[in-house]
């Protein structure tokens, strides 16, 4: 990183995803081309136009918490449970001795999104408060009888700052603590901000994460109404096809990615094993989604990393599998990379769009790819789309170039990019 004496490295990976719990299982699926996108079984989704998703079927949060901490699971919505589990996995992977860590120099930053209430929690209140009038609640009844039928800590279970709060409490992290709520780019913005805080010497160690869990009736019906989901329900494994000519929309995934992010000196002093270094970061708003804003974010990250497009070994794309957004992303990549054949990998083809959790899970994919010297395939990439003239890697390939670029954005225009280098 140009002009900064403090360097920021990545020393731990924690993942809860539909293709694996933990970095090892996650990598196994990536390297073997195994998808996590399947018919939804978490609830009866038969009434929805999209009935598939990257659903986690074997997750039990209790396995990741000390017995004394398990009672707090009652006040954690599913995305928060997925986040605290991934945080524990990242801490384990970093092999840090928490007792040797100054708690006031231990920060937490998460990307988070809206979390819908579990419907059954409101059944008693709802039934006590409707009087047969269509689409109306009798607020007098709700105030008198409904309200008291809801669990007292109900609201706390769904606040978007709670991932970071629970993680700080579970691990006594008293340093800076923030929750970025910028949809699909949130996790990457959180990583950029944590890196800035580490560089300005206000922390030594950070857990940076993102988590989302939309595979529930309320979130899924909302996402279906937004009209951006794939309706290729069968076969589910072929639905998420970033940049492919026959893509028809994105697929929802659930899960969390957490990285241990650390000052280099701190990491070296404790003899940490280091995956990679954050070299540069950039953020921008792409007004009108022309690709120019995305290109600006990429250029800012490259400039900070003191790198040129030729130096980048692979691009880790946002790759939504959206008809419009993929073309927009390709324009942004083209604007910076021109005709270069830099391979582009889209992790969402395995686990769908994990929302706020996506960016960090996807970065973990690239860090593991570099560790193993193998860039996984982008699944379902069969036919080139002339509107997406970039070099998507349809098969896995050897990977030696240590530098990669990660891109994330929202469909409103918020963009971010980070350049990382494998630690050698």
């Amino acid at each position: 990183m140009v002009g900064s004496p403090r360097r920021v490295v990545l020393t731990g990976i924690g993942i809860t995803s539909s293709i694996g719990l933990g970095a090892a299982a996650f990598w196994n699926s990536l390297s073997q081309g195994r998808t996590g996108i399947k018919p939804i079984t978490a609830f009866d989704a038969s009434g929805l136009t999209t009935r598939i998703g990257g659903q986690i079927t074997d997750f039990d949060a209790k396995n990741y918490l000390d017995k004394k901490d398990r009672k707090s699971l009652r006040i954690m919505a599913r995305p928060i449970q997925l986040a605290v589990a991934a945080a524990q996995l990242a801490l384990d992977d970093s092999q840090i001795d928490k007792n040797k860590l100054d708690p006031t120099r231990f920060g937490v930053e998460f990307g988070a999104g809206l979390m819908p209430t579990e419907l059954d929690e409101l059944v008693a209140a709802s039934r006590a408060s409707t009087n047969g009038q269509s689409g109306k609640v009798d607020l007098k009844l709700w105030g008198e009888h409904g309200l008291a039928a809801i669990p007292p800590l109900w609201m706390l279970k769904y606040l978007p700052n709670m991932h970071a709060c629970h993680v700080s409490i579970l691990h006594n992290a008293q340093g800076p603590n923030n929750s970025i709520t910028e949809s699909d780019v949130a996790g990457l913005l959180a990583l950029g901000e944590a890196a800035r805080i580490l560089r300005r010497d206000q922390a030594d160690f950070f857990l940076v994460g993102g988590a989302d869990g939309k595979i529930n009736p309320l979130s899924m019906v909302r996402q279906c109404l937004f009209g951006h989901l794939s309706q290729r329900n069968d076969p589910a494994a072929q639905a998420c096809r970033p940049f492919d000519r026959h893509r028809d929309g994105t697929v929802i995934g659930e899960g969390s990615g957490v990285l241990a992010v650390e000052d280099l000196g701190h990491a070296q002093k404790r003899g940490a094993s280091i995956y990679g270094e954050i070299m540069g970061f950039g953020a921008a708003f792409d007004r009108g989604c022309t690709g120019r804003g995305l290109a600006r974010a990429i250029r800012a990250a490259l400039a900070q990393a003191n790198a040129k497009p030729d130096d980048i070994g692979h691009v880790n794309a946002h790759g939504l599998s959206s008809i419009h957004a993929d073309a927009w992303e390709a324009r942004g990549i083209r604007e910076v990379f021109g005709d270069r054949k830099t391979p582009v990998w889209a992790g969402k083809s395995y686990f769908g769009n994990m929302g706020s959790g996506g960016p960090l899970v996807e970065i973990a994919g690239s860090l593991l790819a570099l560790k193993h010297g193998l860039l996984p395939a982008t699944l379902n990439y069969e036919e080139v789309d002339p509107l997406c003239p970039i070099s998507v890697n349809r098969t896995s390939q050897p990977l030696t170039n240590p530098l990669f670029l990660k891109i994330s954005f929202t469909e409103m225009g918020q963009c971010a990019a980070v350049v990382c280098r494998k630690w050698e």
Partner: protein
Amino acid sequence: MKHRVVITGMGAVTPLGHSVAELYQNQLEGKSGVAPITLFDASKFPTKFAAEVKNFNLGRWIKNPERWADSGANSRFAAAAAQQALQDAGLLENPKIDRTRCGVYLGSGEGIQDFHNMVYLIAQSYQSEKNAVDTVAFTAGGYERFHPGREFEQELHTTPGHLADYFDLEGPNYNCLTACAASSQALGEACELIRLGEADCMLSGGAHSMIHPFGVTGFNLLTALSTHNDAPAAASRPFDLNRDGFVLGEGAGMLVLEELGHAKKRGATIYAELTGYGSTADAFRITDSHPDGRGAIACIAGALADSGLKPSDLGYINAHGTSTQVNDKVETISIKKVFGDHAYNIPISSSKSMLGHLIAAAGAVELITCVMTLRNGVVPPTINYDTPDPECDLDYVPNQARVKKVDHVLSNSFGFGGQNVSLIVSRFKD
């Protein structure tokens, strides 16, 4: 060498007025913005009052308010306050400004949920034999009843996205939602972006409304709200012995933060300098702040260290001052710990005594109050302060504004779940 950051524009939509001047003047007069809830029928709720924004008309500020037709109050308040702040700073349609160097960092809340349709659908979809909601019935009803545009506008990135798009701010775009500390944290991190040289200007602040059935329900269940239903205007009484909880408010506060050299070069009016930012976590409990003020103390001390000021330089503290038993006591302990004997010499007041608690937007509106105090030399009061609490024994500027020239002001914001943020603004000196 990090850049200096100054404030060159401000805008506010609050329960005490729809401009910065009204907001400040009404606070000096000790007015309360709290009254019975009119936004919905709260007559049978445990708390039946709040500090609502009154007579708000987005069209007064925005040429095409229909753009925000599906948005929640959060985005509508944000648009009006942003328009004021950018106009004040001279940044609206200014061809000399590189828009790619102007960003947005908000601490803005969610849009308002479709309470009626959702609760109705849950009741309709309940199946007694399963003792659960039938999800097929629920999702079918959702297709029929939920409005896609209004559902989308609940998403947490929509407010900063709209502002960036509408006002052409193409730099970094962030939103954080750290409960009651959100807009203060946004201002602190926006300041850091400018210090680093990643932007020339940042529109920063917050917007929120939780005065809706789910919001009041949630806070009532936590027994966090005052229930002084017989005298709403007297309900928010920070530091008073008989305080019994906070009062919900709503609104937006927006500030333009700008790199000093950039502001000077274009001849902008500089209102104040943002000199200190501290951020910590209690890491204690979800429901309670640390009883000794562990996180708050480190946070205030961090802001002081960041500003390079001595405790005795501070002339006024705008407290978090929620009017809950625990918050006001712990905040008092924390101020005493950091400031020592000087704590008794510093006037401290809570804007929430008049405005209620604007949740995510609170910190930005309170920082605007701090800037106005710096510029006008009059400290706003804490109203409804009648009975001293022996555990809160500092100078809370009871009930009457006070003339006092101040050069440096501290603003505290402490979020539910343990995020603490302190900001310091200073009279600008070249």
